[in-house]
């Protein structure tokens, strides 16, 4: 069995699920974070280097981590709606517990997982814009100067970003296992995107770019949960390749 794990309203994940199915990946299930958190049975064991995962959803789907063949992982948050009657402190505690639980079992899966979890993000490491800017420079991508001060008026909570000029059209190249799909970018930029994916240890990475008049392409940000629909058929092909790679290697 293959899985696509996502938030409830993740349209890009639903598209990926439908597209992968249409390409013959079966059995393939789409599971939301809510379905996982509300599973009627969950069990994760560590015995020496051996780890196991078993869960059964309310809909009766049984999952055995050892038998999974591949996972597209777009889990971002862990829902705690079923704890809404509890105190805020208890809800916070449960959220930390479930995050820690999900992080461990996702890490333990022996099959390909795009993306592998990290403590800074269940579907890949979430990074500040400053860290992405620094990594992108090391990857050889052109990056506008980044400046941050304790007197800034930039409000990232409102979507304001330091690397994206106001009104600029952002295009997204998506790296999947070393291939670049999505925005049609020059080879040097594509190579920089691949290097960034490697430096960030994020196999599936959306790289935002802006093309300025006379300035060429510039790095504008990155995310482990890009809108997969922007990658179209080439992205589905790349995902198929990565998800089946494990079986080819084992054969």
């Amino acid at each position, binding site marked *: 069995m293959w899985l696509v794990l996502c938030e409830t309203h993740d349209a890009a994940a639903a598209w990926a699920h439908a597209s992968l199915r249409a390409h013959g990946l079966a059995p393939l299930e789409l599971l939301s974070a809510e379905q996982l958190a509300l*599973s*009627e*049975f*969950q*069990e*994760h*064991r*560590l*015995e*020496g*280097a051996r*780890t196991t995962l078993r869960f059964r959803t309310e809909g009766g789907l049984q999952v055995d981590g050892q038998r999974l063949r591949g996972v597209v992982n777009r889990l971002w948050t862990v829902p705690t709606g*079923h*704890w809404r009657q509890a105190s805020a402190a208890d809800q*916070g*505690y*449960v959220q*930390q*517990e*479930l*995050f*820690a*639980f999900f*992080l*461990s079992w996702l*890490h*333990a899966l022996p099959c390909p997982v795009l993306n592998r979890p*990290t*403590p*800074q993000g269940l579907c890949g*490491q979430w990074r*500040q814009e*400053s*860290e992405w*800017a*620094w990594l992108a*420079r090391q990857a050889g991508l052109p*990056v506008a*100067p*980044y*400046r*941050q*001060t*304790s*007197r*800034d008026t930039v409000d990232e909570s409102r979507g304001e970003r330091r690397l994206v000029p106001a009104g600029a059209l952002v295009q997204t190249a998506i790296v999947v296992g070393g291939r670049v799909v999505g925005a049609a970018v020059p080879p040097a930029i594509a190579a920089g995107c691949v290097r960034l994916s490697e430096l960030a240890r994020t196999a599936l990475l959306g790289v935002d770019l802006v093309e300025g008049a006379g300035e060429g392409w510039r790095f504008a940000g990155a995310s482990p949960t890009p809108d997969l629909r922007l990658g179209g058929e080439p992205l589905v092909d790349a995902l198929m390749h990565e998800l089946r790679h494990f079986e080819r290697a084992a054969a």
Partner: protein
Amino acid sequence: MILLCGIPSESPLALVGEALDSISAPYLWFNQRQFARSDMAFDIDERGITGWLEIDGQGVPLESVTGVYSRLMDHAKLPELRGEAADSPARKHCDALHDTLMRWTEISPARVVNRVAPMGSNSSKPYQAQLICQHGFEVPASLITTDPREVLAFRDQYGKIIYKSISGVRSIVQAFDDADLGRLASLRWCPTQFQQYVAGTDVRVHVVDDEVYATRIESEAVDYRYAKRQVGESAKLTAMELDDDVAERCVALTRGLGLVFSGIDLKFAPDGRVYCFEVNPCPGFSYFELNSGQPIALAVARHLAMAD
């Protein structure tokens, strides 16, 4: 220049400050409580990472900061912000200052003890246990489940078991006994972690780069940190020497987690096996230093003062 970040009266920070004095290494306090008199900026461009830090009207180029020891507390809880509205200028400045500092320390070429991202492994004990296992330590068998029957079978298999949080929150180890049976039905609301009880001698190992300080802990408590509460008597701490092999594994584990400074909780079982329970990435080492006399703060100070 070395930067000490946090509240200067906090024991580990104060000890490192004293140790830096003892080796005449220059340092500067970033006192969180004085955020109103501090400012900071940094740039990332073709020159690399540059910037300045201003405290009480005195500016320091960030390029001159070669070492950082950070024990920042949650700045939202600073007494100076008590009563401040969420959007007050003071709170906004405090937020922006801490955000600027934390972002800079994540990418700064300075020796940072420790950066935030690598500290994250401690937020999930079973996740960290999988990383620990890769460094040759035994880890106790663990079960995380929503099913009471699995817990009972696990207890049958291992005899004595304990339960503790999966995350780093409310992290107190408790023995599981018959009095807990009535609460097992609540498991379905949240998966809970149970673990094989391992008898033996508790040892806390502090690793600073490649220096290793081991402290033997003698206590009857299940969780020695809460010995007074659990058994009415504080734990006894004594310095000890580790075998080279175990010491090397502690250093490799610390590095493998991306840390420079760690507090590793080991247990030496009667059968000779060495279990590792946890790696604390921000160890409150003063409790161990003040009770065992081991010069941990000095090791941190020497590491910070060493130029790359």
